[in-house]
């Protein structure tokens, strides 16, 4: 159906040997957890000090205590909360052990002390602009998946689909090369002729059989 094509290797010699992928520092999740922990500590501390001065315990504290004491461990709420906690734990561990930073595509560094990344959204925009520059292409949807693959779906309004597709391929290869990525994404192109508008169906984007050019 559609071609999975390897773009021309860029002129850089570092092709095939992606630079060390920068691991995300996970600042966001760490900040959220630290903030939640700080909040809990402050509330407990405030209440503890107040109790030290003879104040009664805060309502939220007695409520929680009573609820915990009254609710049996077999309650669906307790089991559900525990299950959510376990899932959160798995999520945190996955976050901690995986590199992350999937939205930043490493570029071929022009100098050893320079590390450069291009945002995935930016790469998507540039590829889309390149696709729209091709004559005959009226709409394009680009989806850069992961860090290795780019899926481009275009609608061809005029011209022969195969010819437009070939031109699009050229254009996108050049555009991918210009991105300067250390690990250029493989392109998958799908070109479909614009749907003939009979009736009033704006969603008639379905490609007729055999129209996806090879």
């Amino acid at each position, binding site marked *: 159906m559609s071609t999975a094509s390897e773009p021309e290797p860029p002129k850089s010699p570092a092709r095939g040997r992606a630079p060390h992928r920068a691991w995300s*520092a*996970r*600042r966001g999740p*760490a*900040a959220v*957890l*630290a*903030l939640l*922990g*700080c909040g809990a*500590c*402050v509330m*407990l*501390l405030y209440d*503890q000090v107040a*109790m*030290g001065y003879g104040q009664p315990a805060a309502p939220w504290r007695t409520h929680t205590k009573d609820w*915990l004491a009254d609710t*049996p*461990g*077999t*309650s669906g709420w*307790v*089991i559900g*909360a*525990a*299950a*959510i*906690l*376990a899932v*959160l*734990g*798995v999520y*945190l*561990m*996955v*976050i*901690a*052990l995986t590199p992350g930073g999937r939205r930043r595509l490493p*570029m*071929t560094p*022009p*100098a050893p*002390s*320079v590390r*450069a*990344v*291009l*945002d995935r*959204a*930016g*790469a998507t*925009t*540039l590829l889309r*602009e390149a696709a729209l520059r091709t004559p005959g292409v009226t*709409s394009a949807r680009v989806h850069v998946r992961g860090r290795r693959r780019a899926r481009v779906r275009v609608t061809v309004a005029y011209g022969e689909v195969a010819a437009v597709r070939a031109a699009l391929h050229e254009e996108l290869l050049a555009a991918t*090369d*210009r*991105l*300067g990525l250390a690990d250029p994404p493989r392109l998958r192109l799908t070109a479909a002729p614009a749907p003939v508008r009979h009736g009033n169906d704006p969603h008639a984007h379905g490609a007729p059989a055999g129209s996806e050019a090879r």
Partner: protein
Amino acid sequence: MEVSRRRHWLNRTLLALLGLAGLAAGCWVAVAGLDARGQLPFALPSWWPSGHPRAALTDRLDAAGPRDHDWWPAAVLGCLTLGLLLLAGWLLAQTGPREPRRLTLRRPAPGAPGRAKPAPHAPTLRTSALSGVMAAQASDLPGVRRARVRLSGGARRPRARVTVVLDTGADPRAVLTALCAGPLTHARHSTGLPHLPSGLRLRVATPGRRRAR
């Protein structure tokens, strides 16, 4: 660099430990509850702690009876304060690296361009002056809409972090090359630094709606 690497490991370790703790506690409570309901589809291994975790914990607490001692409130206060301090430190560690106010300039030694040593009374430069010039030069490059430069690290070993927003028709590879040849190299030359480690982030401005069909 060092700070960010330490923060990286701190974050990763703490997240993993907290995740492990949450997973263990959640599994313990959930499995114990399901077991008590008789809804567990498998038999628990012999080493699994019997009874409900809450009962196990409160029983142990009551048996040891730390609440009866008069040091208990003080111990709770101390633990809470310590926890708050540690958590606040962790939170503060997430803020970006500090910018040194001034950079120490080096005079390149004759004959050895890479071995510039700071003079005893080395002249200094305001960091914001340098980053401002770098950002201005970067914004003037073709295809660059705007640029922001932050210098972090020590006064003698700064690190540049450059964020560049490109036009939608830009050529990222060319811009990257131009950035290295332009602002980064100028900054290195004008401060006498042998190298300026840099992290560049290229973004692309969101296109307008001009291509409506």
